[in-house]
């Protein structure tokens, strides 16, 4: 797959310090490495797709209530969670984790995209509160 993609790329030659060239030759994926480094340095990598051109996750995986021993969801909570799931979809998130709050009703939530946490907050009754990450 990757070798096919190589034909779609443009060859660029540039000079680097000898020690850097030595390190570069030892890399198994030189093109990808240099491309990532350049994109990162230029600050032009799309944060949603990470430069891939397509979002990586087709749907948002929401915590399973039974597996997570979470309390039953009431009507207001369900409507709030529905909005949160739709927001997570819009953010191309991969996971929405829910955890029961220990001293109050409702849930703490965290919206993830891969290893990044995009949003955190609390879902209680008919109110959703976001916390600075």
């Amino acid at each position: 797959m990757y070798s096919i993609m190589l034909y779609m790329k443009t060859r660029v030659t540039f000079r680097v310090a000898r020690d850097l060239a030595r390190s570069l030759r030892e890399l198994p994926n030189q093109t990808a490495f240099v491309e990532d480094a350049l994109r990162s340095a230029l600050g032009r990598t799309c944060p949603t797709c990470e430069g891939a051109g397509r979002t990586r996750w087709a749907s948002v995986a929401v915590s399973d209530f039974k597996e997570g021993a979470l309390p039953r969801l009431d009507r207001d909570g369900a409507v709030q969670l529905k909005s949160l799931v739709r927001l997570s979809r819009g953010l191309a998130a991969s996971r929405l984790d829910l955890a029961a709050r220990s001293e109050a009703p409702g849930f703490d939530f965290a919206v993830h995209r891969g290893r990044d946490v995009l949003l955190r907050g609390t879902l209680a009754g008919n109110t959703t509160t976001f916390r600075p990450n």
Partner: protein
Amino acid sequence: MAYVITRLCRDCIDTACASVCPCPDCIVEHRPPDGVAALPNQLYIRPDVCIDCSACEPECPWEAIFPEDEVPAVFAADVALNAISAARPKEFVEATVHQSMKPRSDEVDANKRKWEAAGDASETGVVEDRLLVR
């Protein structure tokens, strides 16, 4: 494990369950691209999307929704019927939300008696035969 919509839902036009379901594409209708609906006219829960939150269960005016491990034996075949929505997702669309007049309790009871009397070898068997042909 997931929730299951049983045949008690058939021909109901109330989608209160879909209005509270937090997961898009979880409660679905059978709308195959060829327009030929081979499954009964009811809503289905995709077991691969359901998060077991239980929000839909009390909303159903016909009391048609059960946790998978609590589905009455007489409606056991409906578990497999719901699972079809996960196996062939392209034939299903997210249920449109619209409210209707709620049935009276005697109508709910009459509906239960009707389907319980029909037993497990009811319409579902015919549908499964049709599915095998596809």
